[in-house]
C-alpha cells in the first residue's frame, strides 16, 4: 500500500475492495516505521484520522468521493483545527489553536481524503533546506545524509518515503519545487492566485503560493483540480471558475510549443541539472533555446519583496523575543525588518516589468524548461557550493532557478529525473515545466507525457522499516 497512488487507493475504497480505515491505518504504520529516519512529521493525528476514515467508510456518498480514504498530510503552516499553526517555529507554539482547518484541507477532506498529520519545514518558510533547529532536519529519504530541500521539506520527504501519496506545501521562492527536485517527487506550484491561501500562515503575501506534491502526475492533477475555486477570504485569490486539468492529461505534449530556457538558467546549473534538462528536451523533441531578459534582476526583486514583507510580518516578535527564532532565520529576519520601502516598491515595479516581458515569450511558446535546482541534494550541513565559478551559500542557492519564475507567478510542475549525477546516481533532480499564467494544464500535460515515456518517475525510497 505504501507505493499505491491516491487514484488507486480511492478506487479501491469506492469499490469496497478496501476501507478508508484500513488505508489510513497502513499510512499510520508506515509513518511509525519510517519517520524516525526521515523526520518528515511534526504531528501525527492518529485519532482524528481514524475518526475521519470511519466517517468516509460510513458516508452515503463514498462511492462518488474522488479521494475516498486517501491519507494526506500538510506542511505545518496550514491551519489544522484545535492545533496551533506552528509554521516551523517555536514562537507559534504559544498561539491560539486554529478554529478550523485551512480551506484546502477542507476541500480535500470533503472528497474523502483523510488528514494524518502536519509536516516539518524551515521556520516561517524562510529557507530551502528544512534544517530546522527546533524540530530537527528532515532527511532526504533517498539518502538520509542529505537535505530534503525546503521550505516544504517534510511535504516532499513524506511522499518520497511512501508515508502518504499526497501532501500540500507552500512556495514563495521555490519551496515546493526545490524539495520536489531534491526528494524526487512531482510538485505543482500553480499560478499566483489560483488556490486560496485562507487558513495558512503567510511568509510574503505578494509571492506566496500553495500547491500539492505527489508520486504521479495523475495524483498531482487530481489534488490540484479538487482544490481549485475562488475564496473571498484571500484577497489575492482570483475569482476564476474551476478549470480541471485531469481530463486533459491524455493529450500529452501534442501540439504544445516547448523550448529550453538559456542564459541564467544554464549558467547557474551544475552538470547534473543541465543533463536533466537536456534529457527532457530530447524526449520532447525540442532544440529551441530562449532567453528571458534581466533574470538576475527578477530574482533580486523576489528577494527584496520577500525580505520587506517577511521582515515587517515578524517585527513585533523580533522586538520582543528575537532569540526565540531559529538561529537559521533570526539574523535574516532582523536584517529584513530594516529594508527600506523604496527598495520594496522598486522591486514590485521590476516584477511587473519582467512579467510583461515574459508574457511576450509565451505568445509563441507554451512551455519553458529549466532546472528546478542547480544540483542534486547537498549533504546536511553543507555551507557553500561552487556554481558558475562563484562560491555561493549552499542553502540560498537552491532557489536560484525557481525564484525568477515564482516572482511573476507562473505555473510550474517540477518533474523528477534519476541517474543524472554520475557520482551519486541514487539521487533525483527536478526539471521545471513552466507555462503561461492560468495554463497549469500545459505543464501538467507535458509532465504526463514525460512520465508516460518513462523519463521521469517518483519511486518510494527503499527505507528499512522500523530502523
Amino acid at each position, binding site marked *: 500500500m505504501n507505493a499505491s497512488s491516491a487514484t488507486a487507493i480511492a478506487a479501491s475504497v469506492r469499490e469496497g475492495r478496501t476501507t478508508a480505515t484500513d488505508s489510513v491505518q497502513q499510512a499510520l504504520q508506515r509513518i511509525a516505521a519510517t519517520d524516525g529516519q526521515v523526520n518528515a512529521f511534526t504531528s501525527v493525528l492518529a485519532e482524528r484520522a481514524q475518526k475521519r476514515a470511519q466517517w468516509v467508510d460510513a458516508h452515503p456518498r463514498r462511492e462518488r468521493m474522488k479521494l475516498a480514504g486517501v491519507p494526506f498530510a500538510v506542511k505545518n503552516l496550514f491551519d489544522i483545527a484545535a492545533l496551533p499553526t506552528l509554521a516551523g517555529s517555536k514562537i507559534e507554539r504559544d498561539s491560539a489553536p486554529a478554529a478550523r482547518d485551512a480551506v484546502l484541507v477542507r476541500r480535500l477532506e470533503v472528497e474523502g481524503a483523510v488528514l494524518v498529520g502536519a509536516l516539518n519545514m524551515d521556520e516561517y518558510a524562510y529557507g530551502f533546506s528544512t534544517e530546522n533547529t527546533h524540530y530537527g532536519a528532515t532527511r532526504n529519504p533517498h539518502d538520509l545524509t542529505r537535505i530534503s530541500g525546503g521550505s516544504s521539506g517534510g511535504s516532499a520527504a513524506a511522499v518520497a518515503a511512501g508515508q502518504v501519496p499526497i501532501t500540500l506545501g507552500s512556495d514563495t521562492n521555490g519551496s515546493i519545487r526545490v524539495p520536489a527536485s531534491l526528494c524526487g517527487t512531482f510538485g505543482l506550484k500553480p499560478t499566483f492566485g489560483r488556490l486560496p491561501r485562507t487558513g495558512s500562515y503567510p511568509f510574503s503575501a505578494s509571492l506566496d503560493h500553495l500547491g500539492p506534491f505527489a508520486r504521479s502526475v495523475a495524483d498531482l492533477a487530481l489534488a490540484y483540480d479538487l482544490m481549485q475555486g475562488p475564496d473571498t477570504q484571500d*484577497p489575492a485569490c482570483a475569482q476564476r471558475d474551476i478549470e480541471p486539468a485531469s481530463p486533459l492529461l491524455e493529450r500529452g505534449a501534442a501540439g504544445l510549443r516547448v523550448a529550453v530556457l538559456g542564459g541564467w538558467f544554464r549558467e547557474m546549473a551544475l552538470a547534473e541539472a543541465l543533463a536533466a534538462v537536456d534529457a527532457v528536451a530530447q524526449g520532447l523533441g525540442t532544440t529551441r533555446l530562449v532567453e528571458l531578459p534581466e533574470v538576475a534582476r527578477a530574482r533580486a526583486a523576489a528577494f527584496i519583496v520577500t525580505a520587506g514583507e517577511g521582515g515587517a510580518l515578524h517585527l513585533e516578535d523580533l522586538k520582543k523575543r528575537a532569540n526565540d527564532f531559529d538561529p537559521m532565520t533570526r539574523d535574516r529576519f532582523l536584517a529584513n*525588518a*530594516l529594508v527600506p520601502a523604496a527598495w520594496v516598491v522598486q522591486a514590485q515595479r521590476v516584477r511587473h516589468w519582467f512579467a510583461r516581458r515574459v508574457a511576450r515569450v509565451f505568445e509563441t511558446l507554451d512551455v519553458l524548461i529549466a532546472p528546478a535546482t542547480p544540483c542534486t541534494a547537498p549533504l546536511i550541513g553543507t555551507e557553500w557550493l561552487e556554481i558558475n565559478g562563484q562560491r555561493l551559500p549552499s542553502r540560498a542557492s537552491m532557489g536560484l532557478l525557481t525564484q525568477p519564475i515564482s516572482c511573476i507567478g507562473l505555473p510550474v510542475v517540477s518533474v523528477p529525473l534519476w541517474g543524472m549525477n554520475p557520482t551519486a546516481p541514487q539521487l533525483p533532480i527536478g526539471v521545471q515545466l513552466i507555462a503561461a499564467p492560468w495554463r497549469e494544464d500545459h505543464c501538467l500535460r507535458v509532465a504526463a507525457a514525460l512520465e508516460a515515456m518513462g523519463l521521469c518517475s517518483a519511486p518510494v525510497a527503499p527505507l528499512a522499516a522500523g530502523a
Partner: protein
Amino acid sequence: MDHSAYIDAAAATLGLSLTQEQRKGVALYFGLAASMAVLVQGLPLTPADESGNVFVPVAPRVDE
C-alpha cells in the same frame, strides 16, 4: 559599502535592539539585501512601469 550607520539608525527607529551576536549576522544579511537592491534599482523604469499592485476594496457582507 558599510551599512552600519543605517542599520543602527533604522533598528533604533523601529525599536529593535540588536545584540552584538545578532549585529554581525544582520550586517551580513543586510549587505546581501543591499546587493540585491543594486540590481533592482539598476533597471531603468518610467512612470508607465508603475507597480500594478492594486488595493481591492472590501464590500460588506450582505445577509441573504
